[in-house]
């Protein structure tokens, strides 16, 4: 066996964080294909016109489609998604990246913006679930 610096299970020990892996990338392939389709203005118009019909053009799971309709970014990440794809959706909605990102926390957009202006979320207490530090 080759030696490793750490067990990959350690990646699950970072609080409030989902590490995007090759497996997740595959799980979200069609979701991400939808997201990248929004890089064309014509597709953004079609999506806005009838979101459900547009989504039905992609081989996404029903759960993924529902999470898109709900703009539930935590759920989209749970279903394999990665933020760099997902912001194509929030950009289409005219959201700032800060609003999209902040929507995954338990804060309102104003509260999140205030936290960032005050220096962001501190690292203390946010390093490790197991270590509680």
């Amino acid at each position, binding site marked *: 066996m080759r030696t490793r*610096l750490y067990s990959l299970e350690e990646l699950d020990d*970072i609080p*409030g964080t*989902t590490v995007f892996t090759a497996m997740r*990338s595959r799980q979200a392939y069609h979701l991400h294909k939808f997201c990248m389709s929004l890089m064309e203005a014509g597709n953004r118009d079609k999506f806005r016109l009838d979101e459900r019909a547009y989504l039905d053009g992609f081989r996404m799971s029903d759960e993924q489609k529902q999470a898109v309709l709900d703009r539930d970014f935590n759920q989209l990440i749970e279903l394999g998604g990665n933020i760099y794809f997902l912001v194509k959706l929030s950009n289409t909605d005219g959201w700032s990246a800060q609003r999209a*990102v902040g929507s995954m926390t338990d804060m309102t957009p104003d509260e999140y913006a205030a936290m960032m202006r005050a220096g962001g979320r501190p690292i203390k207490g946010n390093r490790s679930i197991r270590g509680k530090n």
Partner: protein
Amino acid sequence: MARITAGIGSSHVPAIGAAFDHGKTQDPYWKPVFEGYEWVKEFQRKEDPDVVILCYNDHASALMLDVVPTFALGCAEEFAPADEGWGARPVPMVMGDPVLAGHLAEQLVIDNFDLTLMNHLDVDHGLTVPLSLMFGKVEQWPVRVIPLAINVTQFPTPSAERCWQLGAAIADAVQSYPAGLNVQIWGTGGMSHQLQGPRAGLINPEFDNAFLDKLSNQTDDLRKISRLEFLRESGSEGIELIMWLIMRAALGDKVEELHRFYHVPASNTAVGHIVLRPVR
């Protein structure tokens, strides 16, 4: 022969690009960010580089869906700014240098870096925001650019050490290029930030400032930072800092720090910027 004359590190936050494009650089929120880049614009006017090797990451604009290259080198004559969901940034076409890129491709693969070569590549804010910050609003970019896109999104990214080794190989490859070009290398992205999940908004100024402090002459410490440590300490997107290590390694053993800037926040991110000069 070609020479690497400076290395530049900089964040590449998309909101900085939006503020720049929409004339908000003097807004109270953005003013301190743009002021931090005044020095380098004057520096660039004096330096007048010919080519920039620009280490950045594609944010699911041209890569990462169908193909996920670890290191992808842009070999085209030109690279168009990508439409990331709200129209392409109103910035000039990015002109490449296919001859130097071809030389780098040859030398680096011979040196065991199995690069992906991109004969077509649209470039997103990761590449164009640093150009705006270093050169301001221009009709044409005053440099040719060789994009070097690094996977920092999908785990496992290349390691800090691997990035270092690539930078060292780039230094040798540039040095063996016969034309007398003034070449810069930029490492972009970072500093600490997390754009996903309940821990979103993480900022770690201690980590960031230690990284900046060590970038000149304690680089052995930086080369040892594991992916896990980057993810834990600098946030899931802070791992972009490995791209700064490619830049730093390409400058050789000794450098002089000419300029440094650190500011929190720009949108979700800690902004870091450094200008280094190789000392021979």
